[in-house]
């Protein structure tokens, strides 16, 4: 069991998301940085989709009531176990009663904003519509469909103690860098209304930095930058959308739909951030700036293959190390 001592705000139980329920009006939810969650699980020899805690705001403190093997991935939030520093992206064993504290992330070599507390076995909350992710709007999934509160107790799936401690992984933020003019970048495929925007709007989309304003959260990121203008006003019918869709409402400031966005919308869409780069967005802090990069279908699929390859390489090496105690 994990006892929440200091929940911060907006910490939720997430896995890799809830698929197959769009026909019920239920969006995917899931980790904003699915790569950090999956990698943390692989490090602990869980299945990739085991449930973990997503922590966007700090400080955050929990107590382990039993000996627990854990890892903190995502942003480097100077984790401390009973006030002694422990490494990020590293498998540790906590004794019963030990307290894990996470602080505001530092950006020494990689600027990131969300941390993931992964546990050997995974967080044991019920599967709802096939997933343990928190569905905030519908108030189900995760822990009672809501963010964590001080005093919450989170059960852990019993595990056969396969996880090994004392080693770690180099974060993908460093291993899979993507930058344009010194800013983190994400690749975008044009969407249905792309051609309906003015040429100067296209120019602005690809050439200008976009700031993630403070009105940004799991539902969507509101960006600040040049005004994007359609050639003529557009009234669209409600249609399905997915995380990554860049909508442009009246006012011309784009909103990137994120994991908890409505699964349908009616605003013009200028593009969609590719699935393979959503984790980069998930780690872009409020106040930071990003760049958009136009890519092709093939490049987008190549990017997806690259992240899959990275994960399977992590799995291969972790299993080799844990089984043999050595890597040759």
């Amino acid at each position, binding site marked *: 069991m994990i006892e929440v001592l200091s929940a911060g705000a907006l910490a939720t139980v997430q896995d890799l998301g809830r698929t197959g329920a*769009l026909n*019920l009006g239920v969006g995917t939810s899931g980790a904003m940085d699915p790569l950090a969650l999956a990698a943390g699980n692989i490090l602990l020899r869980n299945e990739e989709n085991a449930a973990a805690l997503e922590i966007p705001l700090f400080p955050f403190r929990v107590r382990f009531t039993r000996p627990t093997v854990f890892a903190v991935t995502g942003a480097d939030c100077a984790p401390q176990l009973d006030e002694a520093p422990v490494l990020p992206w590293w498998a540790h064993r906590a004794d019963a009663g030990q307290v894990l504290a996470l602080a505001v992330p530092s950006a020494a070599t990689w600027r990131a904003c969300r941390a993931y507390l992964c546990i050997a076995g995974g967080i044991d909350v019920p599967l709802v519509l096939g997933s343990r992710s928190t569905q905030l709007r519908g108030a189900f999934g995760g822990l009672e469909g809501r963010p964590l509160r001080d005093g919450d107790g989170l059960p852990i799936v019993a595990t056969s103690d396969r996880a090994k401690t004392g080693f770690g992984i180099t974060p993908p933020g460093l291993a899979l860098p993507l930058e344009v003019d010194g800013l983190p970048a994400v690749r975008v495929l044009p969407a*249905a209304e792309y051609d309906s925007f003015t040429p100067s709007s296209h120019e602005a989309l690809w050439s200008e930095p976009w700031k993630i304003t403070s009105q940004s959260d799991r539902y969507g990121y509101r960006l600040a930058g040049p005004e994007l203008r359609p050639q003529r006003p557009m009234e669209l*019918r409600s249609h399905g959308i*997915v995380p990554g869709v860049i909508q442009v409402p009246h006012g011309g400031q784009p909103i990137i739909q994120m994991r908890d966005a409505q699964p*349908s919308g009616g605003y013009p*869409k200028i593009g969609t951030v590719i699935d393979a780069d959503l984790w980069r967005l998930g780690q872009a802090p409020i106040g930071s700036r990003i760049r958009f990069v136009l890519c092709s279908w093939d490049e987008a699929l190549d990017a*997806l293959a690259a992240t899959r390859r990275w994960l399977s390489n992590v799995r291969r090496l972790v299993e080799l190390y844990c089984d043999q105690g050595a890597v040759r």
Partner: protein
Amino acid sequence: MTTNLPQLSLLGTTALLFEAPGETTLTTQRRIWALALEAGRLPGVREAVPGMNNLMVTFAEPPRHRGQLEHTLIELWHAVEPLPAAGRCLDLPVVYGGDGGPHMADVVAHTGLSVDDIVTIHSAPTYTVYALGSHPGYCYLGGMDRRIATPRRKVPVLRIPRGAVSIGGSQTGVSASDGPSGWNTIGSTEVAFFDVERTPPALLQPGDCIRFKPNRVLR
């Protein structure tokens, strides 16, 4: 729409969006339902999700060559017969106006109609459920009388409650859970549109219909 052809576009590498040509009609929607049924069975498709005269097709795995899938969707579109709108019909008791209908006055101001006229016009039709979306259990309805159409609010309300009956542009709908909305709320209902403990969890599905029954009108 200035074209007679369906439009296919990408939603990243996650889905294809199929927009039917022409005006938004129930007949077109019935063809969309038929297309969704067929598309949902195609290899490589995870889910086929109707919208308002359109269909989002999510990939199980994005195919390197999409042409095949796109071609098949167009072929199916031309081949399918519209499904009947023969689902069940639900009578929804509504308390119009009062605290549950905080924007009734705005609809009155925009339309020039009285509260009683608005209630009569709103509750007259049988509304077909075109699609589910927006939030768990939410139904996109077709069939509202244009006389009571009222533009979406300039400033969305941060939280309207579950059961809010609202008008947004030329559409009407009922919120299935608390949440933000830019629509004009004219009444409230007690019916639960989504219960995750229930099988199926959503109360209604495309092809079902709703009739609003004025229970009380508060002024």
